């Protein structure tokens, strides 16, 4: 299915070794001039910014930074929500020959300090008070950090640290310099070559301290080009930038593809309103983590549950027709005429409304990457006519190496390599890849570089195989593989993503590696389960209380049982507990990209795991929580252990 109106596509750029991101940027400015480069929703209105204005801002910031003493090869740490200023600053750093280091907006002090210190960042460009506070806290411990530049004045009226400077002031200085030396900016850009490092990207690391991957201009440009050789993007397209800039997928779209294809980048008003703003823009291209798609499905399921009988019936029928079509598409079978006819009606009645509601009314390509998305979610999106595709790749290969092709989507694969990319499987099952986008190495970490990069092949640490159709099948990180009691390998992520298809389950952690049977720790979705409880007249005061409510446990048990039916006998979840809280990246339970950190969980919830493998009917969990401001709170939770099969008796 192709959507997207009248499209114009720029001719493909020939990427030569001297080409850099700033050079492509300048070219885009010359080509598109007064066309809209980005929009930001501010004070309730979408405010456009043309390529020429974008250029002017980038020039001012770049020259301002030079004035402050930025040299070629210096690192600049960036932190903040998705906003135009963030993109200008990054582009400016690249134009000045610097290296951009993005941090996750919600990073805690220790992470910020580690990355700023390890990367030798000289400047920090931050958003507002919260980030300024973080920067000031770490400043004394990061001697190389000299200036902190902020752009949102809110709450900063009493701040007088001499290291602080507003982006406005910085740009003023840059503009003065531009007047004195009008060629300075272009000269800076001309010096760069493709082999220069553009980004220093810290990988979230499910197991260890973050490692900084060095990506060159060449890497980034090549990756964007090869992606668009598969799925062309057009200058008439819209893209919504709402995932962290510190995530490689966002860089891929906003920086690499954006300037090559010339599409418009839209910034939501606030992170909280991103989904609504997405709907207003209705982008043609979207790349997001599995989380967001899961959240979308959950939102629909909740609305469905609240709808009237007639609406529910129409929805069920429409979705079933959609599923039939989607399954036929996956199996590449022709669709019978009667089904096709039904599909036209279902699309008009149900699918179109759902797509519109999700902000996917004009979507041509929706990508998901980062972590695996469950097959149920995948089928759902295809059933409503959204061309959802899996992307596979690492930060170390600029984000993408393998991708589903339109009309060649298989549920359990991640697709085929993009052009100029080779993927092979090592003897031990590890996925190796080679492409122009493979990174230079880890910053200040030659051992890790040597381990990851051998003869130009990137060793991913993931295992997988290539199926007869040439599709790559991958089992998350090698560490995520479980060896079941019968010696079979099994991916817990698979079971977890299926569990998460239940709207009541927000997160699941499946345990079973070298254990007699499989168990799970479930985090209920507070909002959805809470509403369900209210509708059933169940009173509760907290997450913890709701999670242990017998009827909620039964609700979750049924969901687990349903998922079990689709799993091999030995991989079925036999027992589970509902955890007293949600997993949180601030507690180190998830990475910043929201993947489970299994090793850490195993350690932290050792008591619970032991309980799951004992005969006890419940497990008591005591722990202390330390808040950011130093206060501590004791948690003493009793978690009921539920046997999934118990309802049918012991046999």
């Amino acid at each position, binding site marked *: 299915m192709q959507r997207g109106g009248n499209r114009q596509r720029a001719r493909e750029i020939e990427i030569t070794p001297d080409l850099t991101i700033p050079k492509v940027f300048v070219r885009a400015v010359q080509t598109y001039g007064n066309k809209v480069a980005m929009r930001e929703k501010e*004070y*309730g*209105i979408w405010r456009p910014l043309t390529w020429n204005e974008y250029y002017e801002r980038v020039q001012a910031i770049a020259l301002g930074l030079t004035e402050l003493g930025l040299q070629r090869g210096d690192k600049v740490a960036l932190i903040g929500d998705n906003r135009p200023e963030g993109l200008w600053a990054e582009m400016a750093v690249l134009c000045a020959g610097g290296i951009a280091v993005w941090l996750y907006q919600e990073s805690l002090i220790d992470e910020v300090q580690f990355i700023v210190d390890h990367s030798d960042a000289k400047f920090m460009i931050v958003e507002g008070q919260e980030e300024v506070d973080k920067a000031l806290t770490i400043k004394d411990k990061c001697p190389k950090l000299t200036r902190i530049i902020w752009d949102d004045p*809110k709450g900063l009226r009493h701040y007088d640290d001499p290291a602080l400077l507003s982006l406005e002031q910085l740009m003023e200085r840059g503009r003065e310099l531009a007047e004195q030396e009008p060629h300075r900016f272009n000269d800076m850009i001309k010096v760069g070559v493709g082999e220069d490092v553009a980004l220093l990207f810290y990988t979230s690391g499910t197991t260890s301290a973050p490692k900084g991957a060095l990506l060159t201009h060449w890497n980034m440009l090549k990756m964007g080009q090869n992606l668009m050789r598969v799925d062309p993007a057009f200058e008439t397209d819209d893209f919504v930038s709402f995932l962290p800039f510190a995530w490689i997928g966002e860089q891929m779209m906003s920086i690499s593809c954006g300037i090559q294809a010339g599409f418009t980048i839209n910034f939501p008003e*606030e992170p*909280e309103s991103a989904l609504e703003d997405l709907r207003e823009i209705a982008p043609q291209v979207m790349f997001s983590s599995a989380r967001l798609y899961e959240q979308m499905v959950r939102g629909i399921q909740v609305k469905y549950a609240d709808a009237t009988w007639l609406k529910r019936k129409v929805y069920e029928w429409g979705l079933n027709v959609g599923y039939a079509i989607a399954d036929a598409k996956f199996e590449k079978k022709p669709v019978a005429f009667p089904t096709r006819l039904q599909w036209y009606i279902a699309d008009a009645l149900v699918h179109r409304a759902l797509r519109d509601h999700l902000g996917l009314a004009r979507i041509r390509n929706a990508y998901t990457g980062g972590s695996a998305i469950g097959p149920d979610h995948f089928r759902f999106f295809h059933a409503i006519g959204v061309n959802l595709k899996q992307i596979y790749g690492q930060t170390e290969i600029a984000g993408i190496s393998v991708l589903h092709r339109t009309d060649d989507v298989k549920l359990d694969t991640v697709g085929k390599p993009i052009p100029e990319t080779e993927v092979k499987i090592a003897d031990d099952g590890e996925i190796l890849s080679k492409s122009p986008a493979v990174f230079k190495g880890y910053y200040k970490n030659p051992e890790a570089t040597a381990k990851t990069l051998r003869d130009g092949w990137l060793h991913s640490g993931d295992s997988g195989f290539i199926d007869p159709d040439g599709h790559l099948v991958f089992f998350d990180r090698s560490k995520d593989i479980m060896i079941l009691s019968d010696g079979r390998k099994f991916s817990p992520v698979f079971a977890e993503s299926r569990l998460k298809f239940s709207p009541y389950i927000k997160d699941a952690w499946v345990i079973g590696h070298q254990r007699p049977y499989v168990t799970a720790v479930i985090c209920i979705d507070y909002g959805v389960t809470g509403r369900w409880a209210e509708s059933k007249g169940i009173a509760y005061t907290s997450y913890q209380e709701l999670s242990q409510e017998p009827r909620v446990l039964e609700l979750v048990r049924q969901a687990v049982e349903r998922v079990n039916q689709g799993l091999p006998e030995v991989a079925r979840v036999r027992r589970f507990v509902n955890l007293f809280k949600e997993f949180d990246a601030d507690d180190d339970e998830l990475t910043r990209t929201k993947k489970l950190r299994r090793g850490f969980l195993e350690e932290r919830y050792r008591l619970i795991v032991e309980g799951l493998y004992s005969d006890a009917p419940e497990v008591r969990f005591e722990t202390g929580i330390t808040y950011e401001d130093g206060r501590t709170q004791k948690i003493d939770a009793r978690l009921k252990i539920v046997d999934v099969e118990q309802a049918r008796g012991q046999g």
Partner: protein
Amino acid sequence: MPDRDDNIQLRVENIHMAFGGVAALRSVSIRVQRGEIFSIIGPNGAGKTVLLNCISGLYRPQRGRILFEDQDITPLRPYQRARLGLARSFQKIELFRGMTVLDNIRLGRHVHMHTNLLQAGVYLGPAEKEELAHRDFIEREIIDLLEITHIRNKVVGMLPYGLQKRVELARALALQPKLLLLDEPMAGLNLEEVEDMARFILDVNEEKRWRVTCVLVEHDMGVVMDISNHVAVLNFGEKIAEGTPSHVQQDERVIQAYLGEKEDLYATRR
């Protein structure tokens, strides 16, 4: 204290308010300086809200007078006081639950609207211009300040309590008041929401564009002591102390009024 102190914005002089035989306020006087945060505290039933209601015009005291910017406002009705620049929020949320956040705030702008019914019906021209100017003000100075952008089109009744409290503050601000009366702005909020609310009150008080004098009735001692410039303590309808937070905390009578326990002054967060 000299009577002609220019800096005094609100002057409550010896007001007396009784409901039947119960004297809720007995000759209470307070002076609120321009640009400060003034808190009224006291045990339950001390008459705090009654005092606030007298200031906003909901009650009319039997004796005494209230001067706002040297004008005697005692005989004025609440809406007349609102026009002079007195706005308030309520302890229990008094919003229009079926209307959106934006509409609730717009309503607060009503006193500043000059368009008449006919012009509004035609809309084009001056009415449109005025409407846009008001919307711009609301967006820039209120919605953005109070961080409620993501809910501006949501119906108020569907929002969590903490956000409703914020909307109530937003509506009060839409009046562009010179003095803001806040009745227990922290009541029923969780810790994070309390911190947010305290910051918003400080913003409104200190931000150049606002500089609004705030008078608040509050139970949360931590907040009161942190953000107030002056505190008045009521007990059984009488003012028993007034001064800076640290001064009030050491006052013997205040300590006694709070059950004689020093810690209690800080530990009243429910």
